[in-house]
């Protein structure tokens, strides 16, 4: 049967070649789209390790270059916030807080290994503000800095790339400035968007530059309270500028920058695939109506309707198979050559899903024309010849 189909396909290699080419290109496009979807979904499904519910960011600028003054101002703000009942927890932070557009990276080294990681400078109450889940170890405390080492909390991802399977707590790592002691590990901290992959991140006590704030507010905090809060903080100093943003809005903004391009890509691909489907449908329809004689003959010598139908669907699947085989050959190079830093599993899922969707589309397109073919009466078809 298979050999027979091959022979017939070979007889019309010119028109079938175009169909194969079409399937090959569609496979590549679908492979890219599916891989991207699987990759994005996998990231989305990993725990974030933080909660943005009722977290407000206060961009606070003291507008002064004086370090001692800044320290005094920070104490002033802390004292004020402790007296506000709507503020459950608060923490100072560097300007690269979660879901902001800025980032700050550093090289950390341990026994000759060097790893790049995001560094956030935050306060002692930070885990409570961000609702962070916590792994081995603890968060740094006010007296931690005294021992000569700077305490640092790192994510599991950074711990694995620095220490492998060893216990990270208590180890010391270096950056350009000083030596740091790991006091705790956070299992997850995906702070750039809901679709961010697991990346290195670390936390150190607030430095002299940092003046932005993160607040966890109670459920009773309203827009009116926000206005009052902003004004009160502003009036604590002379030249201060204050701006309040809600972290869930910041996250949505970040997510949008990823969702919108993917959505556009999906729409374009849906149109492309629909177009290809229509084209295949048309060509198959035309081909089958041209092969009426052949079908009549098959029917006359005893082929059933079902057999005719499955024969034509089979032929389409074999043609598609050639295009797909070529496509898989190219697609498999991506995980083999490790072109991008993505797990091989993502590509395999991409290939599998693209295979299934192309086969489904081609079978769907072959279904109606082949049923028309099966309905041909042998007498009529042979009469025309």
């Amino acid at each position, binding site marked *: 049967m298979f050999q027979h189909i091959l022979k017939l396909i070979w007889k019309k290699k010119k028109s079938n070649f175009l169909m194969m080419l079409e399937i090959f290109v569609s496979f590549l*496009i679908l492979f890219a789209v599916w891989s991207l979807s699987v990759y994005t979904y996998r990231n989305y499904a990993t725990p974030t390790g933080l909660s943005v519910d009722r977290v407000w960011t206060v961009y606070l600028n003291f*507008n002064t270059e004086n370090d001692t003054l800044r320290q005094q101002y920070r104490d002033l703000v802390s004292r004020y916030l402790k007296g506000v009942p709507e503020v459950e927890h608060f923490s100072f932070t560097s300007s690269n807080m979660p879901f902001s557009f800025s980032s700050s990276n550093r090289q950390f080294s341990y026994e000759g290994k060097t790893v790049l990681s995001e560094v956030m400078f935050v306060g002692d109450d930070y885990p409570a503000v961000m609702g962070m889940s916590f792994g081995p170890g603890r968060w740094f405390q006010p007296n931690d800095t005294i021992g000569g080492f700077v305490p640092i909390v790192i994510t599991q991802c950074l711990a694995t790339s620095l220490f492998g399977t060893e216990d990270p707590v208590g180890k010391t790592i270096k950056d350009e400035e000083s030596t740091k002691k790991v006091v705790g590990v956070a299992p997850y901290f995906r702070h750039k968007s809901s679709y961010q992959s697991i990346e290195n991140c670390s936390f150190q006590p607030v430095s002299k530059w940092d003046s932005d704030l993160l607040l966890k507010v109670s459920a009773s905090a309203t827009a009116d309270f926000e206005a009052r809060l902003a004004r009160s903080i502003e009036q604590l100093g002379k030249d201060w500028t204050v701006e309040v943003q809600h972290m869930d809005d910041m996250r949505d903004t970040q997510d949008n920058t990823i969702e919108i391009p993917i959505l556009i890509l999906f729409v374009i691909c849906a149109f492309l695939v629909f177009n290809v489907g229509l084209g295949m449908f*048309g060509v198959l329809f035309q081909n089958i109506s041209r092969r009426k004689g052949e079908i009549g003959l098959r029917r006359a010598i005893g082929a059933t309707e079902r057999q005719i139908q499955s024969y034509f669907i089979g032929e389409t699947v074999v043609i598609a198979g050639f295009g797909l085989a070529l496509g898989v050959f190219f697609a498999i190079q991506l995980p083999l050559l490790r072109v991008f830093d993505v797990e091989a599993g993502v590509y395999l899922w991409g290939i599998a899903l693209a295979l299934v969707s192309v086969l489904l589309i081609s079978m769907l397109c072959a279904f109606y024309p082949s049923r028309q073919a099966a309905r041909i009466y042998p007498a009529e078809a042979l009469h025309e010849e």
Partner: protein
Amino acid sequence: MFTNYLKITLAVMRRRKFFTFISLFGICMTLTILIVLTAFYEHIFGGKYPEVFRNRSLFSSMIEEKDTTTDATRRGPMSVYFIKQYISTLKTPEKVGFSSTPNTVNTYGNGKKLKLYFKYTDPIFWDILAFEFLEGQPITQQNFDRNEAVVVINDQTRDDYFGKGVSAVGKTIEINGQNLRVIGVVRGSPITRLMVSADVYMPYSLQKGDPTSTSFNGPFQAIVVAKNEQDLAAVQAEFDDVVRRIPLNQDGDFKPHVLQTKLMPYFESISMGGLLGAEEGKAQQRFFTIAILFALFFMSLPAINLVNINISRILERSSEIGIRKSFGASAQTLVYQFVLENILITLMGGALALLISAGILWWFNNSHFIEYADLTINWTVVIITLVLSVVFGLMSGVLPAWRMSKLPIVEALRA
């Protein structure tokens, strides 16, 4: 003769509506997507309201200072001091204006929270840009001389803060704890024009902080307008020369050895340039190469589809060709007819695509997805894609038709 072909084409299109639909759908969809995507490109990178001089403008990049012993770097936009000292003093440009990088501030007017994008500007900024004033006037040197607390707002902010259509000039708006007097209302521009668009514009003298500071870092960007496009390179060269002789600031903890900053065309100056190698100034070319390759790959699928369908459809018309030949039509006449048919179908698809994309763009402009979006159709792209699809149509239609027209009449009639 021409009307005859037209009639035949329409008859053929009507006879097999499904196939006509497939061809039209393919052409139409491809064109629509290309038109809409290029409209977005134009919207972001083309020089539109109020940046009419963008093609002869240069924008300052970040300042990057590097301590070569520890590899520590400091990057950021520049201060007013730096711009006035080293950019405003350049001799080749026509005008140098500046404004702060986009930033937001909350104001709580009428019991509701408004999030506003604000910019601090200098008076020349208003000379360079062709803002349309709905009422009032721009910030001038006089406002600076008298150190006045004034502000120019856009119509959206006026409508939200003072009420729709209410005149705002002379009234005050509270921003950052300061009461500012509105002196002008401009028609807003979309936020995608990062260098110029904002909801409120204030004189830079209102900025908080020490005005005598000689730090190079601040929140400002310069807009440098050259006399004409040919002068751009000369302006860049003069600035590069100035940068080489800037004495480095060694007062703080950070002691840099190298300072780098450039004046760049718009495309290179926004972050995307960095990915594509903005240093060599070839980012835009590279972007175009990638975009064209992508567009060709994307168009190849509908093209193969079209070729495929045309080839399988030509056989359907063998009897028509046979009859025309037997009544004396030459191969040339037949090919001519098919060419015309293909062009007609392509043009119809093109016209449909124009209608649909005009609809999509109109919808987007009115959807408030991006305020003040002003997407328009780029006719160059329309014409290029139309020509391309005609070429594909010819390739797919003419070759089989030519072959068919060589067919002996008897065989053509028999099929």
